[in-house]
């Protein structure tokens, strides 16, 4: 595979790095991520959390997500799915799947991106004009699958 930016970092190495970052709380504290199962040697399934930004309809809510980093990660973007019900552009209303084509960062993925970047970008999108005022379902609801 052609490396788009110098050295191509092995997948597990990358994911371990992201694991460490998730535990150290790198960032501004508004997103969090970590392995869903600590025994998962393949480092595939991750859980993420986004704290709803203030002054939006998502304020004070904590959104839980599932991120799946496939075998080709980080060359291909991970699949992201909201567990907590949310009303947002680009999120499938019935199962919480994030539509990779609607989220710019997933659509134009680069291998330098990471789970953190995805979560932060999603959070940024929560603050966009088109999303911030969307009426939200009552708190505490999750997608059934």
């Amino acid at each position, binding site marked *: 595979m052609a490396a788009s930016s110098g050295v191509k970092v092995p997948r597990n190495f990358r994911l371990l790095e992201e694991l460490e970052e998730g535990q*150290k*709380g790198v960032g501004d504290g508004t997103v969090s991520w*970590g392995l869903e199962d600590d025994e998962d040697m393949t480092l595939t399934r991750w859980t993420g959390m986004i*704290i709803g930004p203030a002054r939006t*309809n998502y*304020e004070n809510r904590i959104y*839980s997500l599932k991120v799946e980093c496939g075998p080709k990660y980080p060359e291909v973007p991970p699949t992201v799915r909201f*567990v907590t019900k949310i009303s947002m552009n680009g999120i499938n209303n019935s199962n919480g799947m994030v539509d990779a084509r609607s989220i710019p960062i997933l659509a134009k993925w680069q291998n330098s991106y990471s789970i953190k970047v995805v979560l932060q970008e999603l959070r940024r999108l929560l603050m966009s004009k088109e999303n911030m005022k969307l009426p939200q379902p*009552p708190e505490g609801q*999750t997608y059934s699958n």
Partner: protein
Amino acid sequence: MAENSGTDPAVETNTEENAAASATIIKVTVKTPKDKEEIAIAEDSSVAQFKEEISKRFKANQDQLVLIFAGKILKDGDTLGQHGIKDGLTVHLVIKTAQKTSGGGSSQTSASSGPGPSQGNTDGSANSSPAGNLGTPQGSGPSPTPTQPPNMLAGFGDLSGLANLGMGSANFMELQQQMQRQLMSNPEMLSQIMENPLVQSMMSNPDLMRQMIVANPQMQQLMERNPEISHMLNNPELMRQTMELARNPAMMQEMMRNQDRALSNLESIPGGYNALRRMYTDIQEPMFSAAREQFGNNPFSPSRTENREPLPNPWGPPDTAATTTSGTATTTSSTTSSTTPSVSNPLGISSSSLGNGMFNSPGMQSLMQQISENPQLMQNMLSAPYMRTMMQSLAQNPDIASQVARPSFPKMLQMFAGGNASTPTPEVRFQQQLEQLSAMGFINREANLQALIATGGDINAAIERLLGSQPS
């Protein structure tokens, strides 16, 4: 990283973070979106103990704390070790600001960590029990506190959902503004809201409505200046009527007509007309200026006369003679038409007794004074977008618009009620009530329907109407 952990086996299970005994103290950074603190705690503490420390440091209630580590929410019953929290790592903290959201947050979190581990997780009890946590208080951890609020909220859940519809903020003022913004952007939402049975039931809870109204600082201003309003708010009967009115536009129309009838009665008293005109002029000015800003044309132009159409006849042809009047007809017949709706209209009662009619009460007049003195206040109220929608619908219907030009009660209506909602056909809505009425022996379906419409679906009031109308 993590050099300390593992060097000292923690023999003691005692988890005092200050204890220099054999418990390994680790330093965990707790980060909120606003700031961060380093907290020293024993490595084998439970999350609950950790939260205790945090609540001291952040000066927040333990119940308000939500801890997140590596994308997972830490439950009180877990230990730090379970989540792999070691020295030097960072835990995210969210401090819930309102009780509603905190309950919602924890129920949400318990649900979120549920589906995750269900995919073959070897992790301990902490993660498996939350699957059932949503509705029932589970012994997921020793603390039932996070699960209690969801239960409380189960009944209240929609309300908090409603509240979170626009907001998420506990501040009612912001809440209202955000709600208005919402409604502005989506007019259908208003009808959706109105149709939400919870909203309807909420609106029929006078205490709740009263609190909401009182919380509005504009109302508070008004109340300070005029204690009559607090009297009105304190009268649950009145509140209930008003709420029904807000819900049921047909009823509101009838109310308007009542007012008009009463007004025309007032005109017939010697000197009454002048009083009316005076009052009207007082209100005219600010209303005009306020209204002119809202729409291009002035719906309150004096060219529209008051509505002199007869009241709709809810009791069928036999009673036509009693209820329909034209113009300023006899006082008695209009009195009849004014009192018969009295069951559903306490103000109908007062307006029928012309001497001390509501319009003449000093309280109401001073209220009107207040409003006319402070056009800013009225503009504020009028500028609320949901009022705007209402105004627009009023503007489209010139009859009602002229009625609205009448001061006093319609003004109160605007203050209390949010806006009109479109309702399904009355027959559909009152299907159940109709059946009940016919089961009780009221076989005149037409009359039942009219009565139900007038009372907004209130069976008891409808029965009283029906009984009052039947020739004894």
